[in-house]
């Protein structure tokens, strides 16, 4: 997402009360998403011109070297964001936690694993929903690759799993994928009462 940072070279001349500045900061902080001048003015019950001046002063204050955020004009509103120079430390604090694959991603992976090479059309036939976006994500993550083209009208792309996929599921090769028959045997062994 891009946005415009308004760095005001010198202290704005405008007189804005500390109370309005504090309230603006609290509003922008808790909103998270960009907030328009109109929304801010309505919440504070002040004139939009005063809000604009407040925003200008606030943006200038965030320019100080000991501040961690900046005020960005984005999507027609104003938003507080961390300054880009802190991206690395933030990633270090929060990026270490692994991301879990989503249910749709797992479903597409399952179909690709058992049906490869498989076309997007076939995947969608089995899942019953559009799977383009999910497939794209899996391609970017290198869990799925394009393996060729199907020799049929339109020559659609075919997809297969990657070595990265095998690593993720701790398998030495595609031959290690369990089969439906094995699954049934396992279930029988595990709980004879259930059958």
């Amino acid at each position: 997402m891009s946005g415009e940072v308004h760095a005001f070279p010198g202290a704005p001349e405008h007189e804005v009360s500390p109370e309005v500045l504090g309230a603006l900061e609290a509003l922008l902080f808790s909103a998270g998403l960009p907030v328009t001048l109109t929304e801010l003015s309505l919440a504070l019950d002040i004139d939009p011109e005063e809000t604009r001046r407040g925003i200008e002063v606030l943006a200038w204050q965030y320019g100080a070297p000991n501040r961690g955020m900046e005020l960005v004009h984005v999507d027609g509103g104003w938003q507080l964001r961390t300054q880009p120079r802190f991206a690395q430390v933030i990633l270090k604090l929060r990026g270490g936690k692994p991301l879990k694959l989503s249910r749709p991603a797992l479903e597409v992976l399952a179909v690709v694993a058992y049906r490869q090479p498989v076309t997007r059309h076939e995947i969608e036939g089995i899942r019953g929903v559009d799977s383009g976006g999910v497939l794209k994500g899996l391609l970017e993550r290198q869990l799925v690759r394009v393996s060729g083209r199907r020799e049929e009208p339109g020559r659609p792309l075919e997809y297969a799993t990657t070595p990265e996929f095998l690593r993720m599921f701790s398998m030495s090769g595609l031959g290690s994928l369990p089969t439906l028959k094995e699954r049934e045997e396992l279930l029988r062994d595990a709980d004879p009462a259930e059958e």
Partner: protein
Amino acid sequence: MSGAAFQQAAWTVHTEIFDGPLDLLLHLVKRDGIDLRQISIRRIADAYLEYLDKLYEVHLGVAAEYLVLAATLCHLKSLEILPRPPTDTSGAEEPVDPRQVLVQRLIDHERFRQAADQLDQQRMLGRDTFAREPAEIDGAERPLIAGLDAFGLLDLYHELLRKQATPDPTYDLRGRGPDIGSCVRRVVERLGGPGGTAEFSQVILEIPTKVERILTFLAVLEMARLQWVEITQAEHLGPVILTSRIETDADLSVVVGRIQMEVGE
């Protein structure tokens, strides 16, 4: 107290002012300025019973827990009036004074009412103060984990295939489609003879289409109403068990016909 005003007061028993019999009792103690250290059971028992009486006058149902406390108070009151039996000096244990037990309960109740007040005065997130949602971190930088193993993947695949194998049925509008009669028959056969049981969720899961599942659900409710099937659940959120109560020699078509008539099919 005027009739209308009292009705209003009585109504509040079930709303926010009195949250249960102890709350009511504590209110009466405070209202009548009764000293908890020299509590007179007779006085508060009378006040409590009088209040419950008024509730009956306005034809308001009183929850069972209010009556339990009323019984306890009557018992304590009788102990207070009767002469005390001589205390058994040989026993090491002091007999528990039932009055003290009641006072202790009232004190505990008051103590936690005040603790609740104090909690309410804390700086509460979402009321007095607000935090931020954690900022989105670019997912591409983070390691990915599957969250399941290869068998889990297979289960998912299997599930997808099964869903695909049972598409929503198409109906011939000229025909009748699935009917409640066949659903009743299915349940009766599944349960076997009288006394035969099955877990309700199993019965439902064995049925292939959504429409038939709903019809079977209705059929079971109707059968329960007619006492042809007993529904039991041993514990909260535990399995629901169906037990057949239909005689072996009962004519199933009569049973089915009755249900079809009842549901107006």
